[in-house]
């Protein structure tokens, strides 16, 4: 098992390095002049020349890459070339707790909705309950998250004044301010994912419920609850966990639209802002972190299989 984990870790590092290299060169191919964007109409020609030199853009791309790669290996992701040149690691470390908070609450909301909905839908196949759950699952899937986000803001913030419309409050400033700022964005993000997970649980449960061992368990006279929770659900969750793992990684990097609507600067927004500004170091750093999250979530999911299903062993 340990050997397997070690191998996967080495593989993960290689994937991240490959992604970082690819992103470095692809960014240079993308049209857009970062210096022109930075100076807008403010800077003089002397300022422009000085900026090109200071940022090392007067050197060849390969020299720039080697310098960046060397610094990265030393744990230095560089500094933003935009604004006041904040260190990339600071920008990412500031954004990460916001993203993790949003992803976590969204994830919990998605599971709270998806688990009972999926189980209910599977155990009451082709009944009104199943149709209602399926209808809402499709609704959740087809509803754009930014639209839901705006709707939630209008209803719960602008009209009812129950929750804040925008912003983020760190947990260090208190649990309620933190949680209240995350409720609406988490519902907006979590609803779509809950629909995906509920559909997965339904189909997986249906398959499991028809398995021989389930018929055997039923014939033993086990209670419905025990049948479902002890025997059916763990087996039904194995394929679902793969989706959940990817969904969690997607939540971390992909909630950018909702982050924008609620003015929460998470990792996704850092990445998008970096791309818009052609802020190369920020984009490279953020992509590196996102790729690490994806690789590690996949590894985590693989390890989780072994815990849920003792038949799975890695050597």
């Amino acid at each position, binding site marked *: 098992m340990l050997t397997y984990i070690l191998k996967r870790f080495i593989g993960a590092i290689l994937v991240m390095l490959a992604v970082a290299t690819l992103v470095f060169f692809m960014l240079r191919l993308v049209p857009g002049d970062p210096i022109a964007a930075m100076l807008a109409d*403010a800077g003089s020609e002397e300022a422009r020349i000085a900026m090109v030199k200071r940022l090392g853009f007067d050197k060849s791309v390969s020299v720039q890459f080697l310098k960046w790669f060397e610094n990265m290996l030393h744990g230095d992701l560089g500094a933003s070339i935009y604004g006041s040149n904040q260190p990339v690691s600071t920008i990412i470390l500031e954004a990460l707790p916001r993203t993790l908070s949003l992803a976590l609450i969204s994830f919990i909301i998605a599971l709270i909705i998806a688990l009972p909905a999926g189980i209910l839908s599977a155990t009451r196949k082709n009944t009104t309950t199943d149709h209602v759950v399926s209808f809402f699952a499709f609704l959740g899937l087809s509803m754009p998250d930014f639209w839901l986000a705006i709707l939630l803001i209008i209803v719960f913030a602008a009209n009812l*004044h129950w929750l804040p419309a925008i912003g983020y409050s760190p947990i260090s400033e208190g649990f309620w301010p933190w949680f209240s700022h995350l409720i609406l964005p988490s519902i907006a993000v979590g609803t779509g994912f809950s629909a995906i997970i509920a559909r997965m649980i339904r189909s997986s449960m249906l398959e499991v419920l028809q398995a021989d061992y389930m018929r055997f368990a039923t014939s033993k006279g086990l209670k419905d609850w025990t049948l479902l929770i002890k025997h059916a659900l763990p087996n039904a969750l194995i394929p679902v966990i793969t989706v959940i793992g990817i969904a969690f990684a997607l939540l971390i990097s992909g909630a950018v639209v909702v982050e924008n609507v609620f003015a929460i600067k998470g990792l996704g927004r850092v990445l998008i802002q970096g791309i818009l500004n052609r802020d190369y170091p920020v984009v490279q750093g953020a992509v590196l972190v996102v790729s690490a999250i994806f690789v590690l979530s996949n590894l985590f999911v693989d390890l989780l299989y072994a815990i849920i299903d003792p038949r799975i062993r890695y050597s």
Partner: protein
Amino acid sequence: MSDFYKIRRRAKDELKTAYDFDSKDPLFGLSKDEIRGPQLSRRTTLRLMAAAGGLTLAQVLPGLAPKAVLAGSHGGGHLRCAWAGVGEIVTLDPARINQVLQFQIASNVLSGLMHIDNSLVAQGDLAESWDVSSDGLEYTITLRQGVTFHNGDKFDSDDVLYTFNRSKNPEKSMHSRVIGNVNEAVKLNDHQVKFILAKPQASFLTKALERASGRAMTIVSRGGIEALGDAAYGLAPVGTGPYMVTSHVLGQGVVLEKFANYYDSDRPKLDKITITPVDGAEPLAAAMEAGDVDYIGGNPVPSQLVERFKSNSDLTVDIKPGPGFQSVWINPWRDFMRVDNFNKPIEELKKENGFMVRLALVKALDRDLFVTQAKFGYGVPAHGTINPAMGYYFDDTLSSTSEQAYDPEGARALLAAAGYPGGKGFPTLKLQTTPNTKRDGLVVANIYKKVLGITVEVDAKDFSVGIEEFNKMDFDLRLGGSGGDYDPDDGIIDWMQTSSKFNGRDRNKELHPFGFFSSDQADAAIAKQSVTADLSERKKLVQEANAITSNKVACGFLYHPVDILVYNNKLNVPNDARIPGLHELDRISLS
């Protein structure tokens, strides 16, 4: 005569007087005593601004005069602001500021040597008094004593010199050219400095030393920069202003708190200000309606929200003429609308197919419909760069006399004469916009379809890509323009001269001898107006240049923006806090 016309007449007289001086006079017709501080009179300030080419009717019209603070207002309290149209305030370091929305905040944290108030009277900010030599080349500034930085350091001459040297260095500051005319800054003693200029400069007090628009001489703290480093200082600069930055998390916002040791004990009124960047119209509206924020600064309030805010009895919407213009830029190097010599007489140009197409494109622009559909009525149709906010220079007859006047029949006839009757055979054009102006682009595209029957595809590109292509002249049509200031130079010098900084700066000069437009006649008029002190003569030249660029289709002028301020009625926002383009948060209180 109505009050409005009386006021306008008086303002015009005041403006005329301001410009009445010999342009060769190094003191601009003022006596040495008049320029000497501790405060410049309104007349002197207007004269100095006129001499610097920075004074217009919009600025001398009343309504900008301070009014008394409303009864019932009190000190203290927490103001929550949304900074519109932006995801993060990337810097507050004056040396790095590249957007108005950044110095709108920074000017509440950092002081300059001078600051113009709402009645355009130049006040000493950190300058207590000043003296100018007879030849207009030496400015001796006596500094305010007892001023401290937010970190407790005392402010003195060394800080002025440190700021000067930092700003003069293009590696450190983007605004070195603002003080390019200063040969030397000399410390006379701890509280006196002297600036030695290369040549007389009327704008030296009112712009170069001004804390907001100048940026180069906005005083920074040496101790603060050395202790924090450039990066951290950029987020939370240490200054001597009414508020200090106590927190700035990129993308989350800025928290300002009252600086108890500010030199003016009457200000600031509020204890705390939170500024949250909000990108997107709907979240901005919801935040305002939910009471999450009480005041909107930053980029212009989206037009589609104005009626909604107006119908909300809790909010005040204050609209004033705004400077600037927006246009459809037409690339003259595309074959089907090619014009390689704008110097020909207009009647000759009208015989060329390329010019006929350009003229058809601008005559087809139904600007009223555009303003209604794209700007929800909040804009003024444009036919030149000179806008209503420039008052005296604005030519309100241009909308009917210009070749660009809306004429759908004429536009169709021109397009047919150029070989594209009913738009048949005309290639599909790409109209470049930014993602934020895509909607405007769609309205323009619809107008072209309706009037000319041609297809225009809207191509929304990131600013960094769009500006690169625009500078290289690699576009068909582009939507863009200037936010601008209140002087005609902003439009005609920055955009309409052959050598203008936006006129195809990075083009292939062998293939394209000029950028989007070049007219010797316009160049001459623009150059001459910039050195003409006589008001009526300058107006004539400005309007001449404006008419040439309009008639010869430098671009398709579209609309002039308006300046919209929105705040909750629980705030007391006195008129002296309403300086165009700025937010004097230290004067705002809770009522």
